[in-house]
């Protein structure tokens, strides 16, 4: 898969919460984009030269369109927020490894998103839902769908084993998907879209909706359990997710953020600490932009 920088076109943008923008981009980069990958978006302003890494929220492969949902956090993103339909936008992509969908097969899945970490979980929720559809139209019909559901509930191991028999085009349906979403307040951006594809549980910092507190509080309050976790959000949340997963003995795939410059693995700006010596760097650092942004929580020191 080749990385490219190109001048794409904004095919639509709207504000969906205070400071949160929802933009569709017409770009050839959509062809190979996967949930959990990101784009580098380049401001035009001469004072803000570095590209901004922004997670891909949704992909329409057939329409050559990508969706990004981002928070205005400075001059660069404020510039992006001013773009109207039809304007050019300078993007590079698609970057990063993305979430391993195959590990959701036959499992009870948590999609955990906090704040501006919520948007990339939407694309993942869609991909998981589509894997289910794919299955129900072919593989699922062959093998019957109830079979592994109970097994998966028993243990993650059992579910993992079952994937071998069920895999269709590398994907199989998860048993259940809970989207656990943490917001600041009642501005529940994207929540309705999640509800079409997952069971949604909400936590808000101000307690205005759902559980007052963070996403782990919401999990406890709703006595939810899972076999695998996918998560994106602020570092304190990811630390809590890592600890929870470790105690529960389940894998957690977490998408990390770090200040980046190049986005392609050249500058070594965006490393995270790893438990083992990294195969590329030969030290205990992995490049978030290239080896990540998604890591198995137990592999990284956060």
């Amino acid at each position: 898969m080749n990385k490219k920088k190109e001048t794409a076109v904004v095919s639509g943008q709207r504000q969906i919460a205070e400071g949160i923008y929802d933009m569709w981009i017409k770009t050839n980069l959509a062809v190979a984009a996967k949930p959990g990958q990101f784009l580098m978006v380049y401001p035009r302003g001469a004072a803000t030269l570095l590209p901004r890494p922004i997670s891909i929220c949704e992909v329409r492969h057939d329409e050559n369109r990508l969706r990004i949902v981002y928070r205005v956090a400075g001059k660069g993103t404020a510039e992006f927020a001013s773009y109207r339909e039809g304007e050019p936008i300078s993007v590079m992509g698609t970057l990063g490894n993305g979430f391993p969908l195959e590990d959701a097969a036959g499992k009870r899945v948590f999609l955990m998103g906090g704040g501006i970490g919520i948007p990339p979980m939407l694309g993942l929720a869609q991909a998981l839902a589509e894997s289910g559809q794919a299955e129900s139209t072919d593989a699922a019909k062959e093998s019957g769908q109830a079979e592994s559901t109970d097994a998966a509930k028993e243990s993650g191991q059992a579910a993992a084993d079952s994937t071998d028999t069920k895999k269709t085009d590398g994907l199989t349906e998860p048993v259940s998907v809970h989207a656990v979403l943490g917001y600041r307040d009642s501005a529940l951006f994207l929540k309705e879209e999640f509800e079409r594809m997952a069971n949604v549980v909400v936590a808000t910092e101000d307690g205005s909706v759902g559980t007052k507190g963070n996403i782990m509080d919401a999990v406890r309050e709703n006595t939810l359990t899972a076999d695998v976790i996918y998560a994106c959000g602020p570092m304190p949340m990811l630390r809590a997710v890592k600890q929870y997963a470790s105690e529960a003995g389940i894998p957690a795939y977490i998408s990390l953020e770090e200040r980046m410059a190049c986005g392609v693995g050249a500058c070594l700006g965006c490393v995270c600490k790893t438990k083992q010596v990294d195969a590329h760097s030969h030290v205990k650092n992995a490049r978030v932009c290239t080896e990540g942004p998604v890591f198995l929580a137990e592999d990284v020191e956060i």
Partner: protein
Amino acid sequence: MQTDSDTQQRNAVRIRKDAAMNTSVTIAGVELKNPVMTASGTFGSGMEYGEFVDLNRLGAVVTKGVANVPWEGNPTPRVAEVYGGMLNAIGLQNPGIDVFMERDLPFLSQYDTKVIVNVCGKTVEDYIEVVEKLSDSSVDMLEINVSCPNVKEGAIAFGQKPEALYSITEEIKKHAKQPVIMKLSPNVTDIAEMAKVAEAAGADAISLINTITGMKIDIEKRRFVLANKTGGMSGPAIKPIAVRMVYQAAHAVSIPVIGMGGIATAEDAIEFLLAGASAVSVGAMNFVNPYATVEIVEGIESYMKRTGVSDVKELIGAVV
């Protein structure tokens, strides 16, 4: 939708290099097909940007700094944006010379471009270990990093004091099989003096400027943006300082000067050549435009064509 690389390819066709046009330059006996190189630390070992540009088009690839053993580098955040540029405090993270020779050097050797290895160390012995390991390799030149502002030991300590610069240059020249480029720090009072010291100690060429030490404070969080507090500044913002230092250095020595600091376009590169640089390096702007290096190669050719320059060497030091 117009991809930037498409544009680049169209230009490549349109601005066919004139057969009579000579873009080659020679640095310490090594002939580069054109004067455009990459700045150490901004281009990895070529692999990452090889997805964007044809490395065969470059005069030389200068690698990320390599030490005798793997270095972990600094904590994050390691990079920050500043007005017209960036700060970095990577801290010379690198996999060490052995991995470099096993993995990166064979990759680079596939290409028809010169390979210049940037060498870093904490002690003179560290540098020499790397230099000696490379002595039988296919590497074309060595660039000695005595100017990284982001590591506590070594590096810039050798590059800010004339005596220290003299002795490390002399010592490395004793062990080096390839031509030695000393990469100078701009964080000095008198760059001409440092250039002269490097020349007197036997350097075959000098390159400048490395980054200028800068700082950024987040006034909302009231803390430094970089974990290292300070970082090296690069980007278009520093170009006038770099051009001045290249001019001063080039007029102080007779060895070749490789100029860099904020080069974003062919026009910038030509400014450095006119100031006295025999070659130029593209650094932070690779991050802003991954096609920058090849666009600059082509832009120099089209400037030469437009202004009737048949040999790029005519430009070197042409403004006095």
